[in-house]
């Protein structure tokens, strides 16, 4: 079956029991602190690099999903959630406590490049300091911000000052000789090609990019604080829609639903899972259509053709989603334990509308291939530009179409199955080009795979016996998961691995709610793809990453 992974005989792919791992780490482990999803090892703050490199080199844990930091009454804590790209069900958490008065722990950046931004974020919001970190500054908040907003003693009413700095050339000192000719170029935060409010500090040498530094935080809307202030049952669910707002709402809701359902041990009825799967794939199509539209806009500058065509197809999907959920963009359709309501009546009409859409989709995709991918100018702009080798992609924790465009065969829908995906027949799309073109091609082919999934779901739903249409499990009115239960769960969103870490404290609100955003990690790869290339290729590379700033900044 297509869903099975190719056989690997590599030693690193061997699954080890928690006890074997503890033996491997030996004296590094201070004690065990298991999470619901993975064994957790508490280590000393000065052995982070040693522990992580042992796990990476000898046990094959090559994917640092996220670093979640938090403050307790008596300590700070950073948790490194590790996985394997080859088998993401093998997880391990490395827990690093830090002193309450002087929270310093060693940086993981030399082992995993992706830790760079994650640790900066932890420093910014929580206040943990990382020794040996190359560039520990604030990342989401203005650099002049006072206090760390997710720490315990933060006063959110205090006045703050934000600056509008004049940007100096960051490489000036190194390029003072008369021969070099560098120029500083600000792209964004208000610029049509940055897909929102991203700011790129770019240094050019002639027409070539010497250095590009993404400056984010222009849409940091305190999503984690909002989730921590809401109750599990109903108050958190509206927010995921607003992380990745490119119509990927149901995919995001699923991330929260999955984490919270596993935390509270809620079983979702099969019928609801099929509806979820269908809705989520519709969202994926809508999201990829916009990615295609804006990418064509960035690269071809062809506002009237491809953009309008893709938006037209998006409108059709949005119509279907509106029929299903009642909203065009912010669906708020999932509930813990199921979905909020059944398919719209009359069901036949909905099914035939969906089928009509699926029937015309191959023709549309063909049209996009004629318009975009077989366009010679487009090919010149995208083939062999923005190269991201697979090893670099893994090191940065890139996931989703970005990783799959570099040949990394990683898709949580297959590798860590949830919903109804493992019962359906579909393929994971990968391309080996590692360039801008491959990433676009992956998205376009994924649209076709999504259509296959939707079609099978529609068939299933059509034949579902009327008395078994159970859309919600029985969930208590107030959810209070066990005290100090911790879980990290991820789903495959439109942009990649979207994960949620929740720590409960026995109340009806999460004590810590951490979002692992795929775009945050994917955007980190931009300098790797852009440095040394021409300036138009930076824009193409950025477009092919398909970031959405609501999710980068959260």
């Amino acid at each position, binding site marked *: 079956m297509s869903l099975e992974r190719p056989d690997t005989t590599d030693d690193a792919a061997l699954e080890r029991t928690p006890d074997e791992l503890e033996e491997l780490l030996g004296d590094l482990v201070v004690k065990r602190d298991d999470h619901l999803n993975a064994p957790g090892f508490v280590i000393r703050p000065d052995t982070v690099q040693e522990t992580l490199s042992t796990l990476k080199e000898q046990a094959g844990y090559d994917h640092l999903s996220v670093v979640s930091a938090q403050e307790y009454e008596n300590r700070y804590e950073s948790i490194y959630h590790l996985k394997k790209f080859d088998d993401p069900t093998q997880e391990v958490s490395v827990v690093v406590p830090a002193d309450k008065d002087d929270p310093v722990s060693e940086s993981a950046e030399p082992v995993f490049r992706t830790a760079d931004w994650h640790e900066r974020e932890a420093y910014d919001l929580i206040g943990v300091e990382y020794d040996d970190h190359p560039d520990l500054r604030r990342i989401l908040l203005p650099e002049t911000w006072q206090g760390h*907003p997710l720490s315990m003693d933060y006063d959110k009413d205090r006045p703050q000052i934000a600056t509008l700095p004049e940007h100096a050339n960051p490489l000036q000192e190194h390029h003072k000789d008369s021969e070099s000719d560098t120029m500083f170029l600000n792209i964004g935060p208000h610029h049509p090609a940055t897909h929102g409010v991203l700011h790129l500090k770019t240094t050019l040498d002639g027409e070539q990019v010497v250095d590009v530094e993404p400056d984010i*935080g222009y849409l940091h809307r305190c999503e984690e604080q909002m989730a921590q202030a809401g109750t599990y049952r109903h108050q958190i669910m509206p927010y995921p829609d607003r992380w990745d707002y490119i119509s990927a709402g149901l995919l995001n809701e699923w991330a929260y639903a999955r984490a919270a359902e596993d935390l509270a041990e809620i079983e979702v009825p099969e019928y609801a899972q099929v509806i979820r799967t269908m809705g989520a794939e519709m969202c994926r199509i809508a999201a990829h259509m916009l990615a295609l539209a804006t990418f064509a806009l960035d690269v071809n500058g062809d506002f009237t053709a491809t953009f309008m065509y893709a938006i037209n197809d998006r409108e059709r999907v949005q119509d279907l989603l509106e029929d299903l959920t009642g909203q065009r963009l912010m669906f708020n359709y999932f509930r813990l334990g199921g979905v909020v309501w059944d398919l719209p009546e009359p069901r036949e009409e909905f099914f035939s509308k969906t089928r009509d859409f699926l029937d015309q989709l191959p023709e549309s995709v063909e049209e996009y291939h004629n318009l975009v991918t077989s366009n010679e100018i487009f090919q010149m702009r995208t083939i062999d530009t923005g190269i991201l080798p697979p090893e670099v992609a893994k090191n940065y924790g890139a996931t989703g179409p970005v990783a799959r465009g570099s040949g990394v065969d990683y898709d949580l829908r297959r590798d860590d199955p949830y919903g109804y995906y493992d019962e359906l027949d579909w393929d994971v799309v990968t391309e080996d080009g590692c360039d801008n073109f491959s990433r676009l091609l992956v998205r376009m082919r994924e649209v076709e795979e999504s259509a296959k999934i939707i079609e099978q779901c529609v068939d299933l739903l059509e034949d579902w016996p009327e008395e078994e249409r159970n859309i919600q499990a029985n969930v208590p009115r107030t959810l209070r998961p066990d005290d100090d239960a911790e879980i990290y769960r991820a789903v495959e969103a439109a942009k990649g691995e979207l994960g949620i870490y929740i720590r409960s404290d026995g109340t009806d609100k999460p004590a810590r709610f951490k979002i692992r955003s795929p775009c945050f990690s994917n955007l980190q790869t931009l300098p790797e793809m852009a440095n040394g290339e021409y300036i138009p290729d930076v824009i193409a590379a950025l477009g092919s990453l398909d970031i959405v700033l609501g999710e980068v900044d959260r």
Partner: protein
Amino acid sequence: MSSDQPFITDESQVVTETRDARMTGQGDRFNSRLREAFGSSPFILTKFDKFLNWCRGSSMFMLQFGIACCSIEMMHTYAVKHDLDRFGSGVPRASPRQADVMIVPGTIVSKFAPRMKRVYDQMPEPKFVVGMGSCTISGGPFQEGYNVIKGAEEVIPIDIHVPGCPPRPEALVYGVVKLQERVANGEAAPVTVKPYELEEFSDLERDELVDKLADQIDEDELVMRYNFADSP
């Protein structure tokens, strides 16, 4: 032209007529049906201001300005199906210096507010602002956020608020058309209650915070000071 000739093979007649019309300045190429509707008089009588406002309202250039979720619905408003251009206001301009109207489509956070103020200042007068979505009204679902400005009106004046999270494209179209009506009627924006201003750091009132940041920020750097305690 004789009737036994089924189609024109000689185009010279058409060419000659067009050329003559251009050379002599005669012909009725410029006279539209609208002109005919006015009847025999080539003059209309109106106030200059009224005429100019009518022109302004009928041809608005939007600023291409995306912030958050609402910008996705804004794109749909510009694109096929909803097509804001039908109302004479659908051509987004990439530069604020060429734009009349700014749609503020999303949540304003502390880091972005100075930038938005700068973009607004760069637009030539007369300029108008449509606040799109709940976030520009009050901060919307993120109002409690430590970093969120409680409404765009704390930074710039807003002419029309379109509620919704996000508003449907139809709602935005309605808001823009309402703005056009207001502009055509010559109604100005209300004065904002409490704008956060961009000012030089040295002009700030000295207090504990300013003293603390004095060694980090240059005297002439532009800053925006937020008083979150006074926000609604």
